[in-house]
């Protein structure tokens, strides 16, 4: 377990850094072929999950997608279990049978992720139905990207959420890319929140690379959903600094990417927040270095532990296909 600072700002920075350094480590290990499972890195998008998770509770139901390391970690999912999962170990969060694209941490509210684009959006609606029936203040959260708006079920889900009055937060991480295609090559309009308007769902658009903004803005909408028991929609604009899948930056892929990468690197959410901390005066640059060092050590030691964990027994192959009563 990581020993987080009691200072809220520093704790947030530590969380951003854990996610960033964990994914950078994965990129490095993938480049050295230390595992094969496809990894979809969210480097550059960390502030969205960290900001939103600060307003979520353990009793909420959160659903991810193929690019969900940050969603999982920001909610408190174990880094060791994530690494072990990616390495195909039985200690992995999904027993080594899911890999990077099927991760779960139900004790922290992260019900699960699956890689079919938009596939978990309707499942999150079901979580919201449970919340509605339970008559408490819990909500469901569905994370997806701009590409999901090109799937039919996304539109089914927005309509269903509105007409059934379900307490769900839709979070569109608009990183301007679906795989290799820039949004301008796929949609006539860059704003996914236009579909929230069409379905009479309250929405907020925000700078997804600014942790403070994400936290503050999402707080308003989330507390509204908790009270009104009706859906809400966040569109957080961001940029994927790595390629769609794997360890490469994919500089030459997609419309205008090389130039955009320069612009968006300046808006890096981790750099952003570290600058903010320094500007607050109470966090000198030396302290930032200390935190970075502490996080690096933690991430590397969790990786080391995961590499030492056991692989599943081959007799587990056909286990857990159907329900197995607990003995």
């Amino acid at each position, binding site marked *: 377990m990581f020993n987080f600072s009691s200072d809220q700002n520093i704790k947030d920075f530590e969380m951003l850094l854990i996610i960033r350094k964990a994914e950078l480590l994965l990129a490095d290990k993938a480049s050295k072929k230390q595992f094969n499972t496809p990894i979809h890195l969210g480097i550059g998008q960390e502030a969205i999950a960290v900001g939103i998770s600060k307003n979520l509770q353990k009793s909420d139901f959160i659903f991810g997608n193929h690019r969900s390391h940050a969603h999982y970690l920001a909610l408190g999912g174990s880094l060791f279990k994530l690494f072990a999962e990616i390495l195909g170990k039985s200690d*992995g969060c999904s027993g080594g049978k899911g890999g990077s694209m099927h991760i779960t941490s139900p004790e922290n509210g992260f*019900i699960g992720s699956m890689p079919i684009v938009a596939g978990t959006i309707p499942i999150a609606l*079901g979580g919201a139905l449970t919340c509605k029936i339970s008559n408490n203040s819990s909500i469901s959260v569905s994370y997806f990207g701009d590409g999901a708006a090109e799937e039919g079920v996304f539109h089914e889900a927005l*309509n*269903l959420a509105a007409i*059934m009055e379900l307490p769900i937060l839709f979070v569109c991480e608009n990183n301007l890319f679906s795989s290799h295609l820039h949004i301008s090559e796929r949609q006539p309009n860059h704003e996914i929140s236009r579909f929230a308007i069409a379905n009479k769902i309250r929405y907020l658009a925000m700078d997804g690379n600014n942790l403070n903004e994400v936290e503050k803005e999402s707080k308003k909408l989330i507390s509204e959903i908790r009270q009104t028991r009706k859906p809400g929609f966040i569109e957080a604009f961001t940029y994927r600094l790595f390629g769609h899948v794997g360890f490469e930056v994919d500089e030459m892929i997609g419309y205008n990417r090389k130039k955009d990468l320069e612009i968006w690197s300046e808006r890096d959410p981790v750099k952003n927040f570290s600058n903010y901390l320094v500007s607050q005066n109470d966090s000198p640059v030396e302290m930032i270095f200390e935190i970075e060092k502490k996080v690096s050590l933690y991430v590397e030691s969790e990786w080391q532990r995961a590499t030492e964990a056991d692989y599943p027994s081959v007799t587990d192959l056909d286990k857990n296909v159907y*329900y*197995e009563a607990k003995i």
Partner: protein
Amino acid sequence: MKYVEAIRQAIDDSLSKQEKLVVLGQGVWSPFYVGSSMDGLESKYGRQRVIDTPVSENGVTGLALGAAITGTPALVIHPRMDFMILAMDSIVNAASKWRYSLNYKSPIPLTIRTIINRGGEQGAQHSQALQSWFSHIPGLRVVMPSSPSDAYQLLIQSLESPDPVIFIEDRWSYDEEEEFEIKTAYPPLSEEKPKLITKGNDLTIVSTGFSTNLCQKALIDLKEEKITVDLIDLRVLQPLHTEIILESIKKTGKLLVVDAAWKNSGISAEIISNVCESGFAYLKKSPIRITLPSSPAPTSTILEQVYYTNIEEIKESIFNLTENSKR
């Protein structure tokens, strides 16, 4: 009790017994979509628990899965199997794999009820019998009742199952009648297997759903013929249990499979394969399959009469296999 009344009764009794169970689907408030199988349930249990939905097959099925994995048992109804094809992502990618890929250990109380609506000049997209597709998928349980008592019992068991169930009804079975006793408890669905309906020595017939009704009628017609038959109603297509079929083949050495669906890669082929793999030495004759012709369903009644399996066709195959000269 009629078959359709048994379905209604099972849903009524389950809603009464399982306080959290919800029923969702297109047309559950309407008398047109699901016959009389939902009559009165909306007013008895309220629109919070019996929920008529927009068409959105994939969205609603995903929603039902999400409800099931967050603590709300769900029955989702697709009034026509053809339309359920739009829910394949939620069924095949999500529901069947949620347990395995995410190391999920809790029950997934999800039942997907669907109706094969053949005949009536409804044509190719209001008639398909796709039981073989679903039976291909590990993680699903596929159930096809042929009698009112089975319709009741298997639906109760499906709604108590900890695994996703595809519950397939045939509209042509709806008027089947049978007196039977309703029990207060049934064994788990996982213990259900194919069932011997009639006992005999000359031939083994294995059939599914409505085809079993046809076979029963054919055997009544043949009462004077001194042919005795083991008629086995398959009931549970996935996971498939073939022990009773193999036992019967040891005795009769002859096999007829009747499945009112297409032949190629169908469940009828699966039955014959199993018998060839495990009981080849007992076979005295080549097995015969009676299935639909390899074409979509037509509308014209003249063509429908040729398209759908009839009792005469079954009788002829029984004669062929038992070499009875009285034709």
